[in-house]
């Protein structure tokens, strides 16, 4: 076989491998990902699927009972909110009014969070908060 033909075959083989791997990547990422929702988007829904709930912690709703942390999350722009029940590590930056993300599913009107899934956005920049 002459070298240029050999090179061409090699190129085709490696490109197809790359395409196959990329297709696998795309496929697994869509099946493994969790959708992000705001409270207003899932209020009243009955499906038990897992979401990442994002929004702000409503003021004066944080209650701790032993291991269990309960609070309400509202839309970033809006007041519709959902009760959340959570256990696990509470990030240091968790506060009322902060933006948080928590993974879990809606069960009987309460968003039951997966353990340790709570993430708080770090308030590295205070200006935005003080001005609002």
């Amino acid at each position, binding site marked *: 076989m002459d070298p240029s033909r050999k090179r061409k075959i090699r190129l085709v083989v490696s490109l197809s491998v790359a395409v196959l791997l990329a297709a696998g990547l795309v496929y697994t990422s869509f099946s493994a990902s969790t*959708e992000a*929702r705001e409270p207003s988007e899932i209020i009243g829904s009955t499906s038990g699927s897992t979401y990442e709930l994002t929004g702000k912690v409503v003021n004066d709703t944080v209650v701790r009972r032993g291991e269990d942390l309960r609070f309400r999350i509202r839309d970033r722009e809006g007041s519709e909110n959902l009760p959340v029940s959570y256990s696990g*590590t509470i990030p*240091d930056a968790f506060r009322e009014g902060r933006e948080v993300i928590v993974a879990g599913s809606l069960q009987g009107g309460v968003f039951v969070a997966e353990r340790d899934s709570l993430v708080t*956005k770090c308030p590295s920049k205070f200006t935005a908060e003080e001005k609002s």
Partner: protein
Amino acid sequence: MTSLGTAALAVGFLTTLYAIGAAIYGAVRRERRWVDSSRLAVYGFMGLMVICFLVLEVAFLSNDFAFQTVAEHSSTTTPIFYKMTAMWSSQEGSLLLWAFVLSIGSSAVLYLTRDSQRQVAPWATAVLMVLAAFFCGLMLFSVSPFVRLDPVPVEGAGLTPLLRNPYMAMHPPMIYSGYVLFSIPFAFAIGALITRRLDTTWIRSTRRFALVAWIFLGIGLLLGARWSYEELGWGGYWGWDPVENAALMPWLLGTAFLHGIQVQERRGMLKIWNTGLITATFVFCLIGTFLVRSGVLQSIHAFGASTVGGPLLVLIGITSLGSTLLIWSRRKDLQPERRISSPLSREAIFLINNLLLVGLTAVIFWGTFFPLISEAVTGVSSSLAAPWFADYVAPLGVLLVLFTGIGPLFAWGQLSGSAALRVLAWPVALSSLTVISLAIFTDVSSSPWALFLFGFAAFTFVALAQEFARAAITRRALTGESMPVALGSAMARNRRRYGGYTAHFGIVVLLIAVTASSSFQTKEDLRLAPGQSGKVDDYTLSYEKLVVDPNNERIAFNARLAVSKDGERIGTLTPARQYYPTQDPSAGPIGRYFEGEATSEVGLRTSGTGDLWTAFQPDLAPIEEDVEAGNKALADAGPVAQGIAIVAIADAYAADPPAATFRVIWDPLVIWVWIGGIFVMGGALFAVWPTSSSRQRAEVAKAAKAAREASGSTANPGGRS
């Protein structure tokens, strides 16, 4: 003082514009005077940036709250070290840091290439100064670090408590220096492409800068990981968070570039690939800056909505599109001088390693930007969690370890089958033995990727040992030195090679530690009241008592945990939680001391076999009544009475605390993450350190130049460093 800063910034901006114009004019008209003048302008720009930097530092150190950024990120009670580092916790301060480091790096590289690179350097100057003009322009017209507050506040907001950790304070300048210094090889690559001077000169004169950038970025990653481990209270050092990924991606691409250019220098191959890699590395540095500043992805690091996202995105677009077109238009000049003739050659293994590193970057890129991708495709933003990343990174990392071991064993060009067998014999034999004994005597095989990784790591260690031994033996035969001396002098004679091998050793140690600590850790959340105890792995932890430690900055609750193993007490751990007061008046005069920011200080027991890591989350519900009462009774009382009340409340709580949650982690081998990291950086530093022979060469070149000038000759075609 703010006006001095603004003035220096404005003059700096004009200087960059002049330098761009002079460099391009001088390059096009081939007038050295203009090129020299542009270089001097870059030095001047550095002087102005140093002034800006000092003005802001002095403002932080002297509590000059007339500076808005000082009032927002520092206070009179902030410790001095954090006053000095508070600058880059703000957006405007980190932009200034970018411009400051860029001015120093540009001046250094232009000084070193002042007598060479006649064609390439002016264009590189133009590229670097376009970047400088961009960042100066942003500060001047959008987010200035020199905004004046009127009236001047008497006290500042202070630095976010989470950022008060020495690792945290030092990691942004490291990451930024890495990002910025990658612009130097990038700028010279662009210069070489424009002038079609595509031999290895641009690589040789900037590869040290690439390596230094890589070291800075690597140190930044390590420090950030250490901060996460000590401060964030979740027990990990890497969480595949977008901003972590943003710093890892250019580091991986930079690693590929540092290896790719060796193939180009030795074999004249991978020219398009290398110019593409350095472009991609630099674009990812810009993306890293963008991700922190734009808030487009959900991240614990996001700095809130910001105004610089748009302009940065435009810069990223222009840089990637422009460089791609430029490389495409020069593809004929970038033809390889040879082709890879055999898979049994060092260049073939380097290419595979390059592909693995780029593949790793592609996976991380996809995962990081998946929320945006999925929103574009399906209309709903979805995100990928750490397990998805691990599924891809584990196999790629395992293969990377294997090829890291094989690469140095194979020679450039081609290796005969029997020679390959000879160099592979020992590593293959000993790594097989390792895998078999691990599978029989331990339960490592419960995690197949871990077993593979440990096996390949053994392979790489044996291969490296073989290389070091051969160098020492050859050297001893030549000089009759003793073994250790021979090894030392052999290494000193080829710093680039043996520094590289040391870095390889370090990265494999690091990956072993990462694998062990992620696959075999034990994590428990214990709920303990004082006097109770719980068991994690082989350790029994009992909650002895709670100690209150207030000072003028915060109130700390320190939990004392007695640690025992096999019934014998082996130590005490003191995980703590610290409460910083909030400025928010709605919390009340007493409440504000408990409702503000809180940080964790972990209790850590480190050993060579693993870390016992503990974090403490107290339940402060019982003090709410006291705080309410205090808020009412002491609303108008002076700070002294309030202070006494706060300490009294805290002491009463500590005397009879309720059950608290302790997170306890047994993290095997985790200390080797940091030790391995130190070896990687040490090895790279060893490689980049100027050798006596390179200094001699520089002196010879200088003498030759002086001789030429004395004889009146002006011929210096091309110039080689």
